[in-house]
């Protein structure tokens, strides 16, 4: 019988984690061997019935203590720096080749491709491309986990989360929810299918999507009445959304924020928490009136309004 011991790594992030994990494992085993070895040796050599020399136990305990304190401190700091570096690299997304939208809800994952293709509990991605996920939750906290990529991020309701990966091998991998989310938490699983770019393109065209995500978003932008104020021809004094995504926004409390997905989403749902400088806080709140999936579509539309056409 085949007994799994070490999971395959099929993404760049997986290789980074594997290297770091192996290194820490080695350090741990060395320390364990030291402690266990000493305990064994002492327990055998100094068991009560032996008559070995027990005279002059060391009085200068602080010399040893300072020694092993500084040794462990240095070893730990090295591991910390390595781990922190990797963490920053793993969690600060680079410029993406492909952006997908993920909505978690009890108990399934809904994934939207920019072309309007939609899938449930499955994620098709092209091999070798940097994929960035923009994730939202409709209800409780979920966590999007692909063990083969060693990548995971919680999806917290009320804020957008992002995560990225770059697959290195075609194949089918497990997709799991790792934050307990209710009765069928264990069934909130799916598959990540890494395909060659050509196969991915073919798969996309066979999904029969008629409208891109941005086009669907534009429709919603009108339906929810956003265009009444933020539209090009509007007479209401509202900030223009053209070129907004990725730009720096000055707020009326004097601070500056970058208009990322999270900012745009917050501004739709709770517009008064971050008011653009020079504008009155007159926009109504859409909190509780718009689903996460619709928010993401409108977001896709607002992103598509960038003249340059992509994120900074």
């Amino acid at each position, binding site marked *: 019988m085949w007994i799994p011991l070490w999971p395959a790594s099929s993404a760049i992030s997986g290789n980074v984690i594997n290297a770091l994990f192996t290194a820490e494992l080695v350090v741990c085993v060395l320390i364990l061997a030291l402690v266990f070895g000493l305990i064994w040796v002492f327990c055998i050599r100094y068991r009560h019935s032996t008559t070995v020399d027990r005279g002059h136990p060391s009085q200068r305990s602080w010399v040893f203590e300072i020694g092993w304190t500084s040794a462990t401190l240095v070893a730990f700091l090295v591991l910390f720096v390595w781990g922190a570096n990797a963490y920053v690299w793993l969690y*600060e997304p680079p410029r993406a080749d492909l952006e997908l939208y993920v909505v978690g809800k009890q108990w399934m994952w809904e994934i939207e491709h920019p072309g309007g293709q939609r899938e449930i509990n499955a994620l098709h991605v092209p091999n070798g491309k940097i994929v960035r996920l923009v994730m939202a939750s409709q209800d409780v906290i979920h966590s999007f986990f692909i063990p083969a990529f060693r990548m995971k991020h919680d999806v917290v309701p009320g804020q*957008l*989360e992002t995560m990225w990966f770059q697959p290195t091998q075609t194949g089918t991998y497990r997709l799991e929810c790792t934050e307990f989310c209710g009765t069928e938490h264990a069934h909130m699983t799916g598959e990540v299918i890494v395909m060659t770019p050509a196969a991915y393109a073919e798969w996309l065209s066979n999904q029969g999507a008629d409208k891109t995500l941005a086009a669907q978003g534009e429709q919603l932008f009108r339906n929810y009445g956003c265009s009444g104020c933020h539209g090009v021809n509007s007479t209401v004094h509202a900030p223009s959304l053209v070129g907004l995504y*990725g730009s720096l926004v000055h707020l009326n*409390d004097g601070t500056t924020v*970058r208009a990322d*997905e*999270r900012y745009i989403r917050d501004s739709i749902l709770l517009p008064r928490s971050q008011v653009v400088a020079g504008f009155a806080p007159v926009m109504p709140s859409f909190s509780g009136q718009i689903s996460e999936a619709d928010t993401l579509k409108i977001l896709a539309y607002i992103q598509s309004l960038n003249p340059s056409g992509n*994120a*900074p």
Partner: protein
Amino acid sequence: MSYIIGWFVLLLLLGLSTLSAFLSLGSVAPLLQFAIAVTQAGLVFVLFMRLRDAQALPRIFAGIGFFWLALLFVMTAIDYATRSGMPQP
């Protein structure tokens, strides 16, 4: 006698704090009001709760709660102050 003076100062500070709310101080107002509250609380602790004549131990335990509370505030503020979801250009 020092109690009466202390009480008078406390009321004075209260008035000052209330007054500050009606001035257009912007984001300074909450800080000022918080500073006044800290001063008032310090007065109450030192004077009315007699930390002035207390031994070291009660003083330490009076401070320890505020110190640990500061840990909660600071460590969480580190998170809220530096959150962002976007690749930096």
